[in-house]
């Protein structure tokens, strides 16, 4: 593919080529639309439920960044692992985890993925190859590299997709992991979701090198910057990165240039950026609107069909909220379970 060749992995700070990702088919655009919309509506509902006091503690919403995880999953193969930090609801839904189980975990109920013992930041699904859900910024990068090591050890052809934010990308263990991943040629794709703010600190105030695709240069890890608001660009770059890692060439870094519309967490007044900045991004670069527009204009999808999708998505989300509101809290005996596994010896 010519476009792909043009955007070959850059190693030494080449200028990022203009973004003209190959088009999606009608079905692909529909799939991307459905998946992203599910995350959007789910997160909006989680925000509401937080406001109603049904969700406690921390709750970090993914609204605005949906194209990243959806595009990555569209390029992934069955068995590829996903691991991320605390802004994780979108990743769970994108890997196919049930909305009910995710929402019930947010409300701390027994039907939650961690039976109410993990919360927003700590959910897992072995079945869907989702390895969390981690609350210590950057810790998931070493863990994700370990998933890659397991793939390498077993030679099973799987790739670990290890997500982090622009904030986590400044943690020391990230570079320890980069070093070992390249040294041992581990199959890991590092996805740096640069949403421009590490909590309240903008990238330029926290990072000496703001081109995150170059963060692997000193380890010879190829990287590229990707328009993380365009799901087609994400999928295309993801395909390239996954192929690189799967073929035994070692890790690859994708800097996803994205944006979160909401605050860092529910309790963030977001005084560090202007309303105009957020509004401009929403109006001009919204990942879901971009696909919707294509569906209508290019693929000639009827409004009714889109409304049908919207309705189905709302149904799933409302059902999850209903379930998570009425599901009982964990039995008190759960306090003492899952601390250790029974040993055979």
């Amino acid at each position, binding site marked *: 593919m010519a476009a792909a060749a043009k955007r070959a992995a850059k190693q030494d700070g080449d200028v990022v080529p203009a973004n003209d990702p190959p088009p999606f088919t009608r079905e692909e655009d529909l799939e991307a639309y459905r998946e992203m919309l599910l995350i959007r509506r789910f997160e909006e509902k989680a925000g509401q439920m937080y406001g109603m006091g049904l969700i406690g503690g921390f709750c970090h919403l993914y609204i605005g960044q949906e194209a990243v995880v959806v595009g990555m999953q569209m390029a992934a193969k069955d068995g590829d692992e996903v691991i991320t930090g605390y802004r994780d609801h979108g990743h769970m839904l994108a890997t196919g985890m049930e909305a009910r189980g995710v929402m019930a975990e947010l409300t701390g109920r027994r039907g939650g993925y*961690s*039976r109410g*013992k993990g919360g927003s930041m*700590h959910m897992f699904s072995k079945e869907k190859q989702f390895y969390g859900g981690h609350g210590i910024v950057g*810790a998931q990068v*070493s863990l994700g*590299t370990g998933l890659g090591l397991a793939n390498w050890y077993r030679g099973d052809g799987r790739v670990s997709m290890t997500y982090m934010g622009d904030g986590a990308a400044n943690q020391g263990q990230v570079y320890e992991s980069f070093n070992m991943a390249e040294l*041992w040629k581990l199959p890991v794709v590092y996805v740096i979701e640069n949403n421009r703010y590490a909590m309240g600190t903008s990238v330029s105030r926290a990072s000496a090198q703001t081109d995150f695709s170059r963060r692997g240069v000193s380890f010879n890890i190829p990287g590229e910057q990707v328009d993380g608001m365009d799901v087609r660009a994400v999928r295309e770059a993801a395909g390239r990165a996954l192929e690189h890692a799967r073929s035994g060439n070692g890790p690859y870094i994708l800097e996803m240039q994205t944006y979160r519309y909401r605050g860092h967490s529910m309790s963030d007044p977001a005084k560090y950026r202007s309303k105009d900045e957020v509004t401009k991004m929403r109006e001009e670069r919204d990942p879901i609107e971009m696909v919707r527009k294509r569906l209508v204009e290019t693929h000639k999808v009827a409004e009714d069909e889109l409304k049908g999708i919207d309705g189905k998505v709302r149904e799933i989300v409302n059902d999850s909220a209903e379930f998570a509101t009425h599901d009982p809290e964990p039995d008190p005996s759960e306090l003492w379970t899952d601390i250790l596994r029974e*040993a055979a010896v």
Partner: protein
Amino acid sequence: MPTDVLMPALSPTMEQGKLAKWLKKEGDTVKAGDVLAEIETDKATMEVEAVDEGVLAKILVGDGTDNVAVNTPIGVIVAEGEDASAAAAPRPAGGAEAPASNENAPAAGDAAAKGEVVVEKGGAPATVPAQAKAPSAVAKPPEPETTARPDVPEGTEMVSMTVREALRDAMAEEMRRDGDVFVMGEEVAEYQGAYKVTQGLLQEFGPKRVIDTPITEHGFAGIGVGAALAGLKPIVEFMTFNFAMQAIDQIINSAAKTLYMSGGQMGCPIVFRGPNGAAARVGAQHSHDYAAWYSNVPGLKVVMPYTAADAKGLLKAAIRDPNPIIFLENEILYGQSMPVPKLDDFLVPIGKARIHRSGKDVTIVSFGIGMTYALKAAEELAKEGIDAEVIDLRTIRPMDMPTVIRSVQKTNRCVAVEEGFPQSGVTAEIGMKIMEEAFDYLDAPVARVTGKDVPMPYAANLEKLALPNVGEVIAAAKAVCYR
């Protein structure tokens, strides 16, 4: 003035070694820096260099001699033209004249001459000057009781091996048994282990299962945990647990908590192992005993063996355990030889204490190297008519309190011993538990003997003061017996 060439120490804990061969012969002229001889320990081979120029007048210990104690004169150098026969005059061991350049050497042989317990040596340079090492008398821990182990069938043959070999064998056996088990850490493969615990594993299992990491504890601990979450069974070696402070977030926040946070879905079968606590003269940053730290955390098991047999059986059990295990070894114990049962698959259950010595007058509870003080004290107490029962906890978490409580119910007195710090220490926990569960049985308050509440000093005398000693254990036992 003839100068003795002394058997050098290669590491802070070396006690003896083999004089492999002389590279110079009697009558040879030597210059400073010339290699005189090669010596070997179970860990390494090193060269002995001449410090001064002169003539190698006499070789006192021949090629191929085993078990040469550190500081034994192995040869004599005289100045050129000096009467070589002067060298023949016998001199007491450790009486070598320290060269002016070696200002750090303590007054040679003082403590050794008095027969005191000294567990310390000089540093460990790559090539060792032939002269002026610190004193060498090293306390051997008493041989542990080896009869009547409830976990060993009667009539089992016992073979003597070092704790180091026992640990290596445990890993090798489990790696043969289960392809998901692998070792990673600094210098574990090609170097054969910084303390030679992984000796031979690379040769048997290859580089995929014996992985040398860069010096990057935080990163490789996290990678190990990630691999364990994915279902492999890593053994992560820390060169010492002092360096695990770099990695403690991954140990606590990722390894220990994920099972709970995932509602039981995501287990973490991993062993973090390596030497813990004080070695000898290595200063505050290399001497910390972390037993109490890790034992504070639900989701971890903390194992700290004393005997070679327990080291083997517990490490095998730890590798098979589906939980994250902190396996705390001790550099001083690595070289100790003790009997280990010759069994195909010898396992010691985690979480079970062992009554190492039965007695009726006072219970002494300890673990790891603390057992050396406890056992020596029990011997001394016996001479004074106090019959101490000594319990080796072996596992710090979960702690086998029923065994301790039963003993206290019998003796009504207890002394708890550890090398770690007193505040919030393991012995503090033992004392509290006894108060909660056996208060009415106590005839005296529980006493404890711990490391002193100071960062570990370097100076030999201060280090000795900072560590617990046998006298303190004896005094505490007498105090609780009101004697």
